[in-house]
């Protein structure tokens, strides 16, 4: 646009100049010599000539004749000019001019002999001359008028040409002025723009400077050699240098800790030489920097390269993160402490599981055995009462552990594919007898379309339902307990609702609100019979909520209660799932079983139960013995304790599975008081086939044997009946315990050096001591075991204390 205007201007100016030059040239070079005057002068000179002739004819004065000659010459000269002058060439082309001119010239030429002749002839010829001249007059008149007319026209043309040129000049001048105005306004705009940009730049610079100075982050600008070019207020504050002190100095000597200088120099050199950046443009990086007082402190920094004019500069943004790092450290420490606390808690739980459940196992097992011996009716009643109390105690321990485990987050959901019908049937089967004891009838059924295989946290669901059914049984007399299941489609997906309906005493409205809280017991103590921990429904609530469901109760006192729960229903393909055994396990006697257990009491209990069920038992007291036994003989089943000296149950299982022994693929079932799910995972990982929780029950053993040995071929020989003991098994166990204990202390008295052996044997006896009611001795032996394990100097003292405890211990008893 602008270029076009400029070009137009240039063209216009060029055109104008050439036009003017042409015009000037025209005006400068006058081509007319006052033609009008010349033409009229020709007439005047003709008249002079004619007049001279007339005068000469009237006088005899020879001067008059001379005058005729002069006037002839003057007129002749004029006509010559008109006839030959280049100025009149155009004019002569016109017939009305050229023809009369040539005629006049011929006539003049014809006069020449007379004019140049003698004066006498001239005088004589004056009359002829006058006649000729008369003929010339009209011709000359024609010449003059034609010439004047021609030059008038030419003059008009010339004037109009000048006028046109002038008009053009005016137009072009206007155009030029307009163009100049446009150019001027454009120039002004450009200049305004430039000025504005300049102002904006200045403003931006001022703003940038303010930002730099008020930035909380230190901003350090340097060239590629590391020379500091700028250092803002925050940098002054953080590094404790003033700006003027560091400008021009090298970053390395000012800000980089001594230890990092070599790496810094290498990095800078690498960047200069190869353009490779490890820090520049890599976002926020954490490094260390140095203050003026030499203090090294952590910084977070980001460096970017920028082009500042010709020069490349590096801009570093640094933030002092000392405080943040300190708080992070504190947080990490706090977290570590919390984790350590959690770990301690988890370990405590595991301890509880083991340390409480193991003696309970012994207690209940021995009660079961005792029940089979010949007892007086009163003794039998006592034993059964003890069994009931022991069962309740075990239940309470389990409940507390459930809550603690759930709260600590140790317990995680374990979904599996189960058949809901079987699950319900099992619950009814296992609880039916208890219900019948209170005169209750127990049933279950579907409302609407049944669901079969589902993916669900079955163990929790089972626990919740057992709790609800147990409560219903507890608070209902001579009534009916109904488990209803129903599928319902909801916006979030299909749900499973299970209702446990009883016709019991019901729950008052105010109690309904708090039954799901922890440690809440409601209801009639007469009905409750045994006061619970008040944790059952609390656990149920937690479990249901953990499964993504909800639980509630509706009840009318005196008529009954409905406990309902709703959980998401995920249908599954049940094909390939092992059939669950709902029926009581069939007895499959005559199996060949390897029993691995380091605790003599527990070993004895288990062996008694197994042989009582008609199986053959081979014993192993630790993992190594187990591996040896398993390699030489193929058993039908291996029952493996987990916590054992030398080689534990997991190690032994791995050895058996990975070895080439005869029993490398027989079922191995873990025996453990540790019922934590992680523990079970580790059993499975080690290659174990199943899990049997301690304390062992006859029913549990039956289930396991039925499950793992049903398809196996029965051993060829019937199990030999165990010989009738001369003394009761209890007495034999007690004596054996007494022997072991004495042997231990005799051995300890010899001052053995093998601490590991001391720990092992102390542990063994300690495990038995609890079962025989010598808890002080047990604790003293545990102290010995720990001291030996730690290789502590007070080992001797603990042994002495243990000996004292042994000597002062009450007589060992299993009752």
């Amino acid at each position: 646009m602008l270029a076009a205007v400029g070009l137009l201007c240039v063209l216009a100016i060029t055109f104008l100049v050439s036009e003017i030059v042409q015009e000037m040239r025209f005006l400068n070079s006058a081509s007319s010599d006052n033609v009008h005057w010349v033409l009229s002068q020709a007439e005047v000179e003709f008249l002079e000539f004619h007049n001279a002739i007339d005068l000469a004819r009237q006088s005899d004065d020879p001067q008059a004749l001379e005058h005729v000659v002069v006037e002839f010459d003057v007129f002749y000269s004029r006509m010559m000019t008109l006839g030959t002058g280049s100025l009149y060439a155009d004019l002569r082309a016109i017939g009305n001019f050229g023809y009369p001119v040539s005629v006049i010239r011929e006539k003049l030429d014809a006069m020449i002999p007379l004019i140049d002749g003698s004066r006498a002839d001239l005088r004589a010829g004056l009359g002829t001359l006058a006649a000729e001249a008369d003929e010339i007059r009209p011709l000359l008149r024609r010449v003059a008028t034609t010439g004047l007319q021609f030059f008038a026209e030419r003059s008009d043309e010339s004037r109009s040409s000048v006028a046109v040129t002038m008009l053009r000049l005016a137009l072009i001048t206007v155009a030029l002025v307009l163009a100049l105005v446009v150019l001027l306004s454009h120039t002004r705009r450009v200049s305004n723009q430039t000025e504005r940009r300049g102002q904006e730049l200045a403003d931006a610079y001022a703003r940038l400077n303010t930002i730099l100075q008020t930035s909380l982050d230190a901003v350090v600008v340097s060239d590629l050699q590391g020379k500091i070019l700028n250092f803002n207020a925050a940098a002054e504050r953080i590094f404790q240098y003033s700006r003027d002190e560091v400008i021009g100095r090298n970053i390395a000597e000012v800000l980089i800790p001594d230890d990092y200088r070599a790496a810094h120099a290498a990095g800078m050199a690498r960047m200069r030489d190869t353009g490779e950046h490890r820090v520049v443009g890599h976002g926020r990086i954490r490094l260390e920097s140095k203050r003026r007082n030499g203090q090294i402190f952590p910084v977070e920094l980001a460096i970017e390269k920028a082009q500042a004019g010709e020069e490349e500069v590096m801009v570093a943004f640094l933030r002092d993160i000392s405080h943040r790092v300190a708080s992070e450290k504190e947080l990490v420490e706090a977290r570590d402490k919390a984790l350590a606390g959690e770990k301690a808690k988890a370990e405590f739980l595991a301890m509880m599981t083991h340390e409480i459940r193991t003696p309970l196992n012994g207690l209940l097992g021995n009660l079961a055995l005792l029940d089979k011996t010949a007892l007086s009716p009163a003794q039998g009643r006592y034993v059964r009462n003890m069994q009931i109390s022991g069962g309740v105690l075990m239940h309470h321990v389990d409940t507390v552990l459930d809550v603690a485990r759930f709260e600590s987050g140790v317990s995680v959901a374990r979904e599996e594919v189960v058949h809901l019908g079987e699950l319900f049937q099992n619950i009814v089967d296992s609880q039916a007898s208890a219900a019948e004891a209170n005169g209750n009838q127990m049933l279950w059924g579907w409302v609407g379309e049944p669901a079969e295989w589902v993916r669900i946290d079955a163990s929790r669901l089972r626990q919740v339902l057992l709790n609800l059914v147990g409560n219903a049984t507890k608070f209902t007399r001579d009534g009916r307990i109904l488990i209803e299941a129903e599928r319902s489609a909801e916006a979030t997906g299909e749900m499973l609702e299970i209702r446990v309906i009883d016709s019991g005493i019901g729950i008052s409205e105010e109690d309904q609100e708090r039954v799901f809280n922890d440690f809440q017991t409601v209801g009639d103590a007469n009905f409750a019979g045994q006061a619970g921990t008040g944790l059952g429904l609390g656990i149920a609530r937690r479990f249901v909520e953990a499964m993504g469901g909800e639980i509630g109760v509706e009840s009318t006192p005196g008529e009954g209660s409905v406990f309902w729960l709703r959980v998401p229903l995920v249908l599954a393909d049940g094909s390939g799932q092992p059939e669950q055994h709902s029926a009581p396990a069939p007895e499959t006697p005559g199996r060949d079983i390897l029993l691995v257990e380091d605790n003599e009491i527990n070993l004895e209990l288990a062996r008694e139960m197994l042989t009582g069920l008609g199986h053959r038992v081979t014993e192993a007291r630790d993992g190594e013995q187990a591996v040896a036994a398993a390699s030489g003989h193929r058993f039908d089943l291996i029952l493996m304790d987990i916590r054992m000296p030398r080689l534990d149950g997991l190690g032994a299982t791995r050895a058996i599975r990975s070895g080439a022994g005869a029993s490398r693929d027989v079922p191995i079932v873990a025996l453990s008081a540790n019922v934590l799910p992680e523990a079970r995972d580790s059993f499975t990982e080690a290659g174990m086939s199943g899990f049997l929780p301690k304390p062992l029950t006859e029913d549990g053993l039956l289930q396991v044997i039925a499950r793992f040995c049903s398809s196996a071929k029965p051993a060829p020989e019937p199990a030999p009946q165990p010989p009738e003991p001369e003394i009761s098994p209890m007495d034999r166990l007690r004596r054996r315990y007494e022997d072991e204990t004495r042997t231990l202390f005799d051995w300890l008295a010899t001052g053995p050096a093998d601490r590991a052996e001391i720990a092992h044997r102390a542990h063994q006896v300690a495990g038995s001591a609890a079962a025989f009611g010598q808890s002080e001795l047990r604790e003293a032996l545990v102290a010995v075991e720990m001291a030996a394990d730690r290789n502590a100097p007070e080992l001797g003292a603990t042994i002495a204390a243990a000996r004292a405890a042994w000597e002062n211990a009450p007589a060992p008893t299993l009752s």
Partner: protein
Amino acid sequence: MLFPRLATAALATALFALPAGAETLPMPTGPVILTISGEIENTNGDGTAAFDLDMLRALGESEIVTETIWTPATHTFTGVRLKTLLDHVGAEGDEITAMAINDYGVTIPVEDATETGPIVAYEMDGAQMSRRDKGPLWVIYPFSSSSDYRTEVIYSRSIWQLDRMTIEE
């Protein structure tokens, strides 16, 4: 295009460079063809200077080759340089009033009379100009040499059939 070629012949003006007293000019012997009057120092009778052709020729010849608007082609004019003539008569005026035989008069400024300026021609193409042929004297400017000489004013000053000049203050 032809440029006027100035005849280099005449530098005879040097001979007459010194102003002469009254009545210092020789008397004409042939027919007088030019009479100069007015503010002149050198005369040959009654305050005028009368020249015949030989006297003019004696002042030195100059040539101008040029076209004119009054003639059909390029011609070589021979005559005396106006400046030489004025110097010769010791003219001390600013203006020259030149008159022709038919009493046509024109004013020529003395400044026009330069070393390369007009001549008072008496020959055209080597032949003496007759009165019938715009002779005997014709003031010729070097028209072709410059557009400055091709103006109406200059054309008007190019008087032919010249026979009198008066030098005026």
